[in-house]
């Protein structure tokens, strides 16, 4: 038995349902279905989609199946550790399969069974949710997947990235790992999640043990401390650097600068200093960068003799 510092709820440590078993299970599941298992991208991103293994690979005209965990940062979602569901730093499990397999919905439902969600006991629904990332110039059609009214995954057939058609069409599945784990463990507060399945008295850790302090400090930074003049300056610098790298013909490092600009924009947004009209302008600037990166990336993968991709 393990006790959390946050709510005092009694949590049973269980190797089968602990937080890490979820992403280990998903990794195994998708590896068995032919996915390359990657590690997180080492830059601040708002979602697993921003990992170049998704964004740029979606424009690659080849077979590409990949899965990975991606720590994601959404500064505006910070709640100083006081909200049982909202975090400014959380984990996504990301799958991208290209071309989209014909039986992908069944595969996905099997993956839910694998992590302990049985459709015979729950109400699983595919509810329209078209996805759009203005900063990536990307969009797709699909659903959010509901389990008893809770959104547990995003399911999207990418149509365009960087303003260019994806061909063949990849399907992206994004699992919200904390939510799924809370569901599987029957826990009301994210900080009460059993992380490792090790009992407390033997050093077992909860989500709160590992991340509560981080949420408190990072929320304060995002909402109160971040120097907005500096952020504005860094945004402009990242934008400039991105352009310079593109001039040198290197889309991959240029993409890193694009990600930095995007994260800086998110921080400015969290500080509440961007108006509706300014927002549009910032988003437009990031999109211009990602579009330029994507275009150069696609160009660099064209076969000269056919003029086509591949």
């Amino acid at each position, binding site marked *: 038995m393990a006790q959390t510092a946050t709510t005092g709820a009694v949590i049973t440590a269980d190797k089968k349902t602990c937080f890490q078993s979820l992403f280990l299970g998903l990794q195994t599941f998708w590896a068995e279905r032919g996915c390359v298992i990657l590690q997180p991208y080492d830059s601040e991103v708002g979602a697993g989609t921003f990992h170049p293994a998704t964004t740029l690979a979606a424009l690659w005209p080849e077979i590409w199946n990949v899965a990975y965990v991606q720590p994601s940062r959404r500064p*505006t979602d910070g*709640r100083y550790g*006081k*909200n*049982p*569901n*909202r975090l400014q730093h959380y984990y996504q499990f990301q799958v991208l399969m290209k*071309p*989209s*397999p*014909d039986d992908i*919905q069944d595969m996905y439902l099997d993956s839910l069974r694998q992590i302990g969600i049985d*459709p*015979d*006991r*729950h*109400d*699983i*629904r*595919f*509810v*329209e949710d*078209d996805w759009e990332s203005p900063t990536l110039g990307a969009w*797709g*059609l699909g*659903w959010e997947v509901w*389990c*008893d*009214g*809770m959104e547990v995954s995003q399911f999207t*057939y990418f*149509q365009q990235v960087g303003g260019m058609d994806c*061909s*063949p*069409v990849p*399907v992206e599945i994004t699992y919200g790992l904390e939510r799924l784990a809370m*569901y599987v463990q029957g826990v*009301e507060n994210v900080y009460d999640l059993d992380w490792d399945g090790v009992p407390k008295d033997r050093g077992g850790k909860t989500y709160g043990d590992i991340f509560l302090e981080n949420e408190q400090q990072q929320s304060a930074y995002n909402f109160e401390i971040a120097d907005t003049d500096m952020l504005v300056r860094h945004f402009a610098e990242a934008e400039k650097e991105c352009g310079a790298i593109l001039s040198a013909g290197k889309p991959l490092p240029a993409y890193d600068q694009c990600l930095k600009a995007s994260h800086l924009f998110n921080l400015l947004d969290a*500080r*509440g*200093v*961007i*108006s509706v*009209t*300014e927002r549009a*302008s910032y988003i437009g600037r990031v999109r211009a960068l990602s579009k330029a990166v994507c275009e150069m990336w696609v160009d660099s993968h064209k076969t000269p003799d056919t003029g086509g991709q591949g």
Partner: protein
Amino acid sequence: MAELLLEILSEEIPARMQARACNDLKRLMCDGLKAAGLEFSNARSFVTPRRLIFVADGIPQRTPDIAEERKGPSTSAPDKAIQGFLGSIGMTLEQCEKRQLPKGEFYFVVINKSGVDAASVLPGIITTALAALPWPKSMRWAGYDMRWVRPINSILCLFGGSVLEFDFGPVSSGMQTRGHRFLSTGTIPVSGFDDYKTKLNTANVMIDPAERRELIATGAAKLAASEGLSLKDDRGLLDEVTGLVEWPVVLMGKIDDDFMDLPPEVLSTSMRAHQKYFSCLNGDGALANRFIVVANTETVDGGKQVVAGNERVLSARLADARFFWDTDRTIPLAERVGALADRVFHAKLGTLADKIERIASLAEELTKYVQGSTPENARRAAHLAKADLSTGMVAEFPDLQGVIGRYYALADGENDGVAHAIADHYSPLGPGDVCPDKPLSVCVALADKIDTLVGFFGIDEKPTGSKDPFALRRAALGVIRLIIENKLRLPLGLVIAFAEDLYGRKADGLMDFIAERLKVHLRERGVRHDLIDAVFALGGEDDLVRLLARVDSLGVFLKSEDGANMLNAYKRASNILRIEEKKDGVAYDGHVDAGALEQDEEKALMAHLQTITPEILSALDTENFANVMGCLATARPVVDDFFDHVTVNSEDLDLRTNRLNLLASVRRTFDPIADFSKIEG
């Protein structure tokens, strides 16, 4: 005669697109069958989240034989032309007949086209209909070169009980379907529609949306009644939920009591928009602590875990709202106003703090024209109007901006009028939205919109064509509705000038823009556009209520016989004047020499005009438009007499000039009322 059954089984079709797709499929299939000359009866279509279904009875096995008559060249045409004709239809001269027409003798031929097997044309009809089906948004998937709303899993197509084989994109038709995604396994062979419907029902799929809707509506009402509650009527939600389930199972959950003191708008938004739950009402009409959720499946525990899960999700959402509700209120709205200085309204127009400053002054100015408002309260309401933008609650529920401000203002002890003005000041948001009518709300709502319009016109950011990024048309309509519906006597020109001074910049073209929007608004309400033009042509009118009263009286007047007659008289007078003035190259607007008038009819007209002109002008002054029209009507007999008995174009040139001047004074009598030349009829 045979039955045609078609089912497209796909991944989940968005609920909002289903009804239209269902109708479109039926229409396109019926059109295709008709075009091929195939009879049919009892055509129906159905839709579920995963299926589009079409069925029709009574289709013949063959298309009908057709005899088609063709006209050939003249019998005297060169042989080459005749041979060309025969070649093109593959017939001989012997098969042609000669027929005498008014233009000469021509060859005619009857081509008998025998019918073909319906089974050979149906695949083309079906694939054409499917390809033409207009989805609001469609997609590509995998590497296939086709679009559909979501990937297609399979196509079932039976004609007379046999498979009708065709390919649509990557999918080949067959005779099998599948049941419910979770409650049924494997494929289901089908022999016809009745078999299909029965087997799917056994496999937990109700194909008819009307049946599902009915089941949900009665099930939900029954559940609510079981707790002594009533269901909050919500047709839109019922339709949407019907499109989310193939096998509706209606369940009831409880809202944690901890959340019941949150604003009902917050509860409703969380439940309806996010979770698609129905709300329940207590006997007194207040929101009850129950919700109704429609699941798409029967679970082994009778929905226990499903309900528990949904309760937990709602609690999580409301916990967030609760957190904001509690923490937001620790800072009074008044202290949040400063944060607006960090929000840019528009790069060239300053921050929201600047905007609020201007709105406060403008709202205060507007109290002069809005009964029941006081300058202090208007200033206060405007000052606080946008303070809720920095609250967590509005960040979470953006649609509730203003509404949340009202709650927080009341919690801060602001007065009711101020609180309501905060909630109302974004309204009306369009032609269908409720227009504020409380005095302070009207002042602040008007001030906000006029400030926006003046600001963007001042920096020349006007709407062009379909582009209106700052929703200025909506703002202008809001101004118009607020003024007209509250009957505000407001010199709009002066108010705009006041707002311009606050910016220190002119808003060129704004008055014309508002006039243009007013015309559009009135036209949409069925007011004749020529009457609007006739009154607008007077120019300089910036009191919309007065303008509208004039348009209305004019409309009533012209509908009467006197009115129609006077319009004729006006047109006759101005036509004569136009023609003669053009001929003579002079404008007849001189003094009428009363002594030089000869006939009684022209003397009477002159006398009458002298009587009614001052009456009309004074009635216009007092805005008694009914009297204005009444005065005009009295002139009808004398005007009629004049035109019946007096020849304007007399041989006596002085007399002619005098009479033309008299006609000009008839026209002048009309001119201050409206420009009658713009009126049609």
